[in-house]
């Protein structure tokens, strides 16, 4: 019954590796997002997908590439991981574009790069 799920919940990896985080929502929403939360709890939008189309790319390094195979999934692939990528990554979804205040967030994936 989980609305927005993410896997894995924890991810520990070394610098230079490539990793992916998966996100799935079963709410029938047509818009999905990726947020990054740093160690100071600051949440920042990274990407937004609406009906499989990228809407936002907030100056995220191109090492990060979102992939949406269908509107229920939005995966985040990260190449050549760096120490500064360590953070908690949250997936979210909402119905409709525009005033998408009702965003449902997943439980987060804590990425630690060593």
């Amino acid at each position, binding site marked *: 019954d989980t609305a*927005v799920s993410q896997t894995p919940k924890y991810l520990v990896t070394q610098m230079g590796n490539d990793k992916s985080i998966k996100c799935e929502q079963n709410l029938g929403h047509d*818009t999905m*997002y990726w*947020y990054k939360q740093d160690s*100071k*709890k*600051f*949440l*920042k*939008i*990274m990407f*937004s*997908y*609406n009906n499989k189309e990228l*809407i*936002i790319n*907030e100056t995220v390094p191109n090492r990060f590439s979102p992939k949406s195979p269908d509107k229920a999934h939005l995966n985040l692939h990260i190449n050549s991981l760096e120490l500064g990528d360590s953070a908690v990554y*949250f997936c*979210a979804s*909402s119905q409709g*574009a*525009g*005033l*998408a*205040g*009702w*965003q*449902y*967030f*997943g*439980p*987060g994936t804590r990425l630690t790069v060593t």
Partner: protein
Amino acid sequence: GESVGLHLPTLSVQEGDNSIINCAYSNSASDYFIWYKQESGKGPQFIIDIRSNMDKRQGQRVTVLLNKTVKHLSLQIAATQPGDSAVYFCADLPSSGGGADGLTFGKGTHLIIQP
């Protein structure tokens, strides 16, 4: 740049007391504001929202007040309970139509409920 920010990083209140969490925003074009609650180890959870054409909105034990003159937003929690302990974020949507806008979050306030 424009931002949404909170005045205090930590707020400690006695159980049963009311708490007020404040937020200042700078984007005059913002017309939709949301409060989220984030418990430890979990994702943000929607609490309450308010549009710019309103000054006040009430939910269950929560009230959001919006003062557009001074660009100030507050969240009032009545009769706080241990389960209210969390980090609270205010967020805004900078535009009111078109596109799947991501939320702009302010810095969180950690609300601690003392027994």
